[in-house]
């Protein structure tokens, strides 16, 4: 059923008893053209674009838990396309363009809100860096503005403008950036894929990858039995190494935990997405009123979906030092997500050395904004066998060839990206 204002009115008159589940709960078939491992944002969007753009509908998405239980329901919901490097910027811009048309495209209210991102800088080097970033964006046809201190003050008057250590000197501003309701993204893609014939199989954990004598992948062993496939696509985020090992893949990935926080509901106070250049703190306000914020990784490798208190303290100290008014609000919840940190901080959308096995990983803590383009480019690769133009730098063998996409210039040290 198509959702519309009319359908809401019609269902209101019938007491809302006639709504159908947004997707089916099918039994797995013995064989699919494509199996996607991981029912997160990227796995679901891959299935959606495979069906919608590339006409491949005999597809299954296998999720070990329920849809939205992983990072797609555990992030700070920011979308933006303010990158520097050639390997990244066109990709994230495609993603932002897809976000802009997404709700009409998949007929689901994802609450896309282009409220703008303000990246603050606090010293000359920070200004130079953001000027360069803004220039790089404009070279790729993306609007950007470098704001002076007074312009920042007019937009966000509530910051600490007397900061002794990290005075606010200005900001890089991308007006088209913003936030999206993250759960709705998972649900919208799941529903859109399901409507086009994709089987979304929840509570089905992949336990092994079966290969024939030539090494070619022929299917997966799961907690619900063997399922055969022509092509196997991995989109397992923080569990990429674990799933990859089932096929003997050796990957440039470390799993780390990133925490995020939400405060009690407040009246509208923060109207943009704000990032603090003196630390790693970022914040926005959800439509429900909660302040959603986070900062750095916990720094040690982790598969636990929770972090430790020292990082909570550090995050909130950074926040209060930038926005003193935060000190009076109370934190309601904190949670952790497992990040597939790559060796250069940029993702991988590529084939592997194994026939029929495709890989989508390395999203670090920037995977949410990439959800539409990641799915689109991964589907393109699976359907056509060649990389999409904007993801052509995101190769698995780029480290070996010396073509890392190191946006932050930190080298092969994943906890610093």
């Amino acid at each position: 059923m198509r959702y519309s204002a009319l359908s809401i009115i019609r269902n209101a008159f019938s007491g809302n008893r006639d709504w159908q589940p947004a997707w089916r709960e099918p039994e797995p078939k013995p064989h699919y053209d494509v199996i996607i491992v991981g029912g997160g944002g990227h796995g679901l969007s891959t299935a959606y674009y495979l069906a919608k753009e590339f006409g491949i509908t005999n597809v299954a998405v296998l999720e070990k838990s329920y849809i939205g239980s992983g990072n797609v329901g555990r992030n700070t919901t920011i979308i933006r396309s303010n990158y520097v490097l050639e390997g990244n910027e066109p990709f994230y811009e495609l993603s932002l363009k897809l976000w802009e048309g997404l709700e009409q495209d998949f007929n689901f209210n994802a609450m896309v809100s282009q409220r703008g991102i303000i990246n603050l800088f606090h010293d000359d080097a920070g200004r130079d860096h953001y000027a360069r970033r803004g220039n790089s964006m404009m070279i790729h046809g993306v609007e950007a503005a470098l704001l002076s201190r007074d312009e920042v003050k007019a937009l966000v008057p509530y910051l600490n403008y007397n900061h002794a250590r990290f005075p606010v000197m200005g900001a890089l501003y991308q007006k088209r950036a913003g936030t999206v309701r993250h759960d709705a993204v998972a649900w919208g893609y799941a529903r859109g894929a399901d409507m086009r014939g994709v089987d979304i199989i929840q509570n089905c954990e992949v336990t092994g990858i079966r290969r024939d004598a030539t090494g070619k992948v022929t299917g997966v062993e799961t907690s619900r039995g063997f399922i055969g496939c022509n092509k196997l696509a991995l989109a397992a985020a923080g569990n990429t190494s674990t799933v990859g090992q089932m096929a003997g893949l050796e990957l440039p990935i470390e799993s780390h935990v990133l925490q995020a926080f939400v405060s009690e509901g407040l009246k509208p106070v923060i109207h943009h997405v704000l990032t603090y250049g003196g630390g790693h703190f970022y914040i926005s306000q959800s439509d429900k009123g909660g302040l959603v914020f986070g900062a750095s990784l916990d720094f040690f490798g982790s598969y636990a979906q929770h972090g430790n208190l020292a990082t909570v303290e550090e995050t909130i100290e950074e926040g209060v030092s930038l926005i003193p008014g935060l000190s009076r609000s109370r934190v309601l919840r904190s949670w952790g997500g497992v990040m597939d940190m790559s060796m250069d901080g940029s993702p991988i959308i590529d084939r592997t050395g194994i026939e029929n096995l495709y890989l989508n990983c390395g999203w670090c803590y920037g995977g949410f904004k990439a959800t539409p383009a990641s799915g689109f480019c991964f589907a393109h690769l699976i359907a056509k066998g060649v990389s999409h133009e904007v993801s052509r730098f995101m190769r698995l063998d780029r480290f070996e060839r010396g073509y890392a996409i190191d946006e932050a210039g930190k080298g092969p040290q994943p906890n610093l990206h």
Partner: protein
Amino acid sequence: MASLITCPHCGSRPKEEFSIRGEVRSRPEPAAPFETWYRYVYVRDNPKGRQKEYWHHVLGCRRWLVVERDTLTHEVYGVTDAAAYRASEVKEAAE
């Protein structure tokens, strides 16, 4: 939780005093083949469970340590000085 690390030189210390390098991997010989160096620099085992890691006690004795830890439960099994760990590894290899 890995909130406290028992440094063999300084005793039980909060983990914020340490900087974390990552998985213990043995450094190849300078003339080792390209493939070996590539794997040393870029490839990680990234196990879900027990892992040995290099930690640096930056705000303490400044010694490099080997911390054996569980990446799922964050339990710490043992901490040794990295030089002592290396010496025992070399000795084991010789035997």
